[in-house]
């Protein structure tokens, strides 16, 4: 089990999150309205806010560990600027995690090799891919992604989601967009009022059919 959440409770102001059980072994999308608790769920799992209950990452109970020791790479909706030149940043991070030999391969896989020498002037989509590369180099147990494409145009959104699908790693992916969820995820969970109401998975044909209808709206732009 990559990520297992049991009896998780967290509070943010008057809002209370209560999740009885959530398993993440592939790409699991969480959809829900604004204020349904999606980001609070990710924050609680990542250890950014106080929470009660059990969070297990790759068989390890991480509930009492700080975010930096949970091995849960948390990609944000607003991508973070690399602190230095992209290559220097990735190499410094890889050195900490013993993945120096993987920098080239990760850059190749994510299509960001031309960006390695850059420091500034990256587009939002490029920054998000660099953030993802950095996260990959930490060899996380699971990715947590909080609307990672919300600031991207449709083509960059598709490119990013194609990368996420090709990662072959467990991802807990929060989005407002059910069509995006259908495109990227194997399992879709619906959240409302701080609770995971239902998770659906394994019906790829049906999900893709719905996605193709949505995609046709955008085809004139391609």
């Amino acid at each position, binding site marked *: 089990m990559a990520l297992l959440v049991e009896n998780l409770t967290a509070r943010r102001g008057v809002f209370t999150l209560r999740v009885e059980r959530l398993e993440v072994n592939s790409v699991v999308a969480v959809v829900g309205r604004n204020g349904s608790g999606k980001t609070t769920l990710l924050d609680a799992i990542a250890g950014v806010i106080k929470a009660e209950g059990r969070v297990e990452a790759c068989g390890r109970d991480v509930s009492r560990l700080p975010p*930096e020791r949970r*091995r849960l790479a948390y990609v*944000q909706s607003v991508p973070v600027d690399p*602190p230095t030149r992209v290559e220097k940043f990735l190499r410094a991070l890889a050195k900490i995690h013993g993945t120096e030999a993987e920098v080239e391969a990760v850059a190749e896989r994510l299509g960001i090799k031309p960006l390695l020498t850059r420091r500034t002037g990256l587009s939002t989509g490029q920054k998000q891919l660099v*953030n993802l590369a950095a996260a990959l180099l930490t060899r996380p147990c699971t990715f947590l992604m909080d609307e990672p494409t919300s600031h991207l145009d449709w083509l960059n959104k598709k490119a990013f989601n194609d990368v996420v699908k090709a990662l072959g790693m467990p991802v807990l992916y929060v989005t407002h967009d059910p069509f995006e969820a259908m495109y990227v995820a194997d399992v879709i969970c619906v959240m409302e009022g701080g609770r995971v109401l239902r998770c659906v998975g394994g019906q790829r044909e049906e999900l893709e059919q719905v996605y193709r209808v949505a995609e046709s709206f955008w085809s004139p732009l391609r």
Partner: protein
Amino acid sequence: MDSFAKTVVVATVATLFLLLVFLPLVHISPPPPGLFESMALTAAFGLAAAALSLVPGLAAAMALRRGGVWAVLAQVLYVPAVVPPTSVGVLLLASFSLPRLFCTEGVEALCGAASFVNEYIINRPLGVLIAMTVMALPVAFSIFDGALREERAEVFFRSLGLSGPRLLLTLLLSLRTATVSAFIFAWIRSFSELGVLLIFASYPVTASIYIYQAWLTYGVGPAVGASLAVVVLAVAAAYLARRWLSS
């Protein structure tokens, strides 16, 4: 731009120009010696104070985002911004005078501390640096607080396994626009400080102390000359900083 807004801008600029440049020119006479030395000294101390305020300002902004007791603690950094600078000067002076107050026989360590304070802090370069840093802290804090509200960089970097000084350095470099803004505005705040310096560290003579002394000793004319020189420098620095930040 709306015509009413244009009128307001023109009226405000004209009033400021009239009050801060044009009308004082009637009194102008050459400033007393030492103007450029005091300005260079102020600039140098201001740069050091601005640099020193960055890490505590960022750390406090991170604490504020955590909420609870940490948020309350972090807000102490706003104190120098919300109380009169003269109060800050008096309080600093009172704190650093404590060793002298308790220096009696049997507690030689306190007497040593008292002489260190007299020799190296009050009305000394280190005192100027402490005073300017205290006043620069709220500026750095508020700018980093704004930056972290918009971007959850701390959450991202922590999830990558970064912590401690490495996390702070990474954040300073990643939030470079905020870091540069915090540095420049903290420097400007340090440069313009008078109240704390007047009470706690009036020597070496910084620009604001120099102008104050010029006014007391030589009258309005030389003080106006010195003030206008500072206005020219400050406007030029602000213009260059704005160009640099927006490039």
